[in-house]
């Protein structure tokens, strides 16, 4: 388990946090990793809080439990911050990534004193600019890859482009927008790190 990155996603039913976790598993799989992507199921309905998980490793993964001490937490919907302790168990050397238009300082007030790194990504505005609709998944996926360093930017973007070409074979006009969304989110994280991003 030493070489395993563990990620927990918080979202609301219908927003695609589960899809994002599966997409991350997909892209990590394509770069040769062992992956797990799985949702935690309850009586789901639109808008209810949901949790999804990823384990990504160089080695075979046998653990089949949920993740209680993640390396990274991704919050797709910031309205969850007041009802769910999203940083519970999150490693202090890890990071939380929140989809919000608010500043990092404003968000930190809702994180129960989490001492690790906090990243904010305005996925809604990125999505509106690039796709004309609010699909926060792609930007949050890119931000997660950028923060966790699971793979390099170029490798990630090229794998995603071929996924989109397959997925959107019947509507190629959305591929450019999705790729733009990924790049913008990746750049957001790079800027937060003072322009330094180590591949």
């Amino acid at each position, binding site marked *: 388990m030493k070489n395993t990155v563990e990620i927990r996603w918080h979202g609301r039913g219908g927003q695609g946090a589960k899809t994002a976790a599966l997409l991350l598993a997909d892209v990590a799989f394509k770069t040769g990793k062992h*992956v797990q992507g799985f949702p935690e199921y309850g009586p789901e309905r639109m808008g209810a809080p949901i949790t999804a998980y990823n384990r990504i490793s160089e080695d075979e993964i046998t653990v089949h439990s949920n993740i209680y001490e993640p390396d990274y937490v991704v919050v797709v919907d910031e309205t969850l911050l007041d009802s769910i302790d999203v940083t519970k168990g999150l490693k202090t050397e890890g990071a939380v990534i929140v989809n919000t238009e608010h500043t990092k300082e404003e968000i930190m007030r809702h994180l129960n004193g989490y001492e690790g790194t906090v990243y904010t990504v305005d996925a809604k505005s990125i999505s509106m600019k690039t796709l004309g609709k609010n699909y926060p998944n792609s930007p949050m996926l890119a931000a997660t890859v950028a923060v966790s360093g699971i793979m390099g930017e170029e490798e990630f973007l090229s794998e995603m482009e071929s996924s989109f070409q397959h997925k959107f074979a019947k509507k190629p006009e959305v591929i450019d927008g999705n790729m733009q969304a990924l790049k913008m989110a990746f750049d957001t994280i790079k800027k937060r790190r003072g322009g330094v991003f180590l591949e």
Partner: protein
Amino acid sequence: MAIRERLSGNEAVAYAIKQINPDVMPAFPITPSTEIPQYVANYIANGEIDTEFIHVESEHSAMSATVGASAAGARAVTATSSCGMALMWEELYVAASNRLPIVLALVNRALSGPININADHSDSMGARDSGWIQIYAESNQEVYDNYIQAFPIAENKNVHLPVMVCQDGFITSHGVENIMLIEDDKVKAFVGEYEPEHYLLNADERIAVGPYAVSNYYMETKRGQREAMLNAREVILEVAEKFEKMTGRKYGFFEEYRMEDAEYAVVIIGSAAGTCKAAIEHIRSTTGKKVGLIKIRVFRPFPEEEIARALANVKAVAIMDRSEMFAGTSGPLGAEVRAAMYQAHAKAEVVNYFYGLGGRDITVSDFERVYENLEKMAETHTAIGMYDYIGLRQ
């Protein structure tokens, strides 16, 4: 070359069905197995396979139609979970006693009530006496491999019994993991064409299926089913050996993990075995304590002598049940393993744990505590009692 993929457990079973292209699949949707008939229906709609999909109005009808198709001479499959299988109850016994080689993909889920959609083994354990062969999986890879092996086991002329291929609901059925798929032509060759011996659509041989049996005949029929179940042992191992030659992946009645020198052992079924393996690696690397695991793959026929032998040298054993049977002694796996150990005059301390009911999670640290308890039991020669719980709120 095998195909490196990432699939959920449900996708893996559906993919195996596509590769096998069975004649008939009647099915009725129920969480968490719904995706299996859904994906198969897609394959059929896309013209990738020509399986006859029968839309039915209930699981009772799903198994009835599967029984009918199988009796007619077709290779027939279905999939279900939980209350869906409970509604098949009557037909499960009909399928087994008529010696029909049906393959059922069971995605294990708790039975009501309270109503719950998550994993436990109460559905299949409740059906353990129905005369079906039961094969369980730890991972998506295993459920795929088991599903393919189920056909040559079920259809073997010395067996002719239905097989339930079980996996844990959501944990593997909806979890995406790496998997190695086998090429279509190899799967087809491994499973072979189904050539039924006696079947209703054979114009040259008139037979009756499912007639009334008076007391003079009923008991011998049951003895015959037992004989078939006994024969299945050899066939299961033969099929596993052939499968290993094809894929390099080794299967038996159970997997022994780090048991060669183990003093403390867990006996468990299903996906939690993988979590236990991580605990074993951690304990061995940090403390050097000799801990091991037996993961049951085949629950029916139950490999009692082999299990007793595998546990002959351990000091303490935790048998872990993911279903209740409200007995004073244990859960269903506990009862089987204890009986096997008693018959073999085993000396180890034994405790039975209930865990994971209705999807209650079990973690690496839970297993670490299990092994700590086993060590204490071996030192003091006192068991906690016949049974205890993991993860139960007080």
